């Protein structure tokens, strides 16, 4: 890659540069915690012994799945809690091309007591979960069960942190 500016030009601009902030990026305080939750969920999924093909889904889908895991409820039960159709929950969790309805975003935001914007951010990003590279193959053993339980506990702790 070629730089299309010269050091002389850069110096002339720096000499005249106003002393102001230039950082870029939306405020991700809430989403930051969401991402922690999702990572923990991914870690839990990665230790699963079930060999699953790699698939892509939105951060929102991963988060929703994580919430269900935490609350130990089925897609149908979560749908009832959120006041949406079961298919909406399932599609959001598994289909990266599915566009979740705004009412899901709003009710989910209300459910986890966080700004709607933070949940919208999750819907816009995709995450790769499962995958052959993560699958351990074979039957379950106590070590992998323990590892998975630990990841789930970490996941719960992060969610509780978010909810508190």
């Amino acid at each position, binding site marked *: *890659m*070629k*730089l*299309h*500016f*010269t*050091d002389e*030009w*850069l*110096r*002339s*601009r*720096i*000499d*005249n*540069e*106003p*002393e*102001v*902030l*230039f*950082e*870029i*990026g*939306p*405020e*991700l*305080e809430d989403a*930051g915690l969401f*991402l*922690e939750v999702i*990572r923990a969920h991914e870690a839990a999924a990665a230790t699963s012994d079930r060999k699953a093909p790699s698939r892509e889904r939105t951060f929102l889908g991963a988060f929703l799945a994580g919430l269900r895991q935490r609350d130990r409820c089925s897609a149908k039960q979560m749908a009832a809690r959120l006041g949406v159709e079961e298919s909406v929950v399932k599609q959001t969790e598994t289909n990266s091309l599915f566009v979740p309805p705004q009412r899901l975003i709003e009710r989910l935001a209300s459910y986890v007591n966080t700004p709607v*914007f933070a949940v*919208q951010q999750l819907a*816009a990003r995709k995450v790769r979960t499962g995958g052959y590279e993560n699958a351990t193959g074979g039957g379950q053993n106590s070590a992998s069960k323990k590892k998975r339980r630990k990841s789930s506990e970490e996941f719960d702790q992060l969610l509780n942190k978010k909810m508190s």
Partner: protein
Amino acid sequence: MSKESLGTVSLRNRRAGKYEHATLYRGFDERNIEHIEKHWLPQLKQAREAQRQRGIDDIREEVRDSHWHWPRKIREAGRDALLSEVFLLECGDMTQAAMIVHKGLVDYLSMHPEHPGRLLVYVDLLATAPWNRVSWDNPIYKGCGFTMLSTAISLSLDEGYNGRIALRSLPGAVSFYKEFGMTEIKEGIGDDGLRYFEVPASQARSVISRSPAEQGATT
């Protein structure tokens, strides 16, 4: 992940009152992650705590990016070089600034009336080390912002987007982007209230070549 040196640029050491050589990198290595984790974030968190103790709840200024989870974001961006790029500026054996851009994604199309709907390079995150920030006590290096934005335009030129770049500005940085020569697109303002700026193709080369006096004449 590996990194490639794009060349040497100058940063002004405010304390010493002179320019120093910095190296601009495309990509990153674990050393950069370590710099951010062990040097940037603790200081940012410390600053935030200091603000809290002073009773300042609004963290919209200096310390807001302490929650950006830069190390993870950099790793994520590094996973798919076709879509995202990481650029780093090193000086004095330390990472001084970092930028993550997305290129050619349909999520980020130009809104500029000159070329609506065209692909561009979108600057997603840009931050300088805490000790370079203007409101820090006796900040060190100046010039990180201009260097990084000019690099984003260079990438856009190289990738065939004719220099088009876009970004959303935090409130405190609006004047900086105007000064840099970017055009604000009112329609681009987000639900979050962040203002949207673009460098159109027709201006890209001049933005990174014209003198401050010429810049002043056009803004």
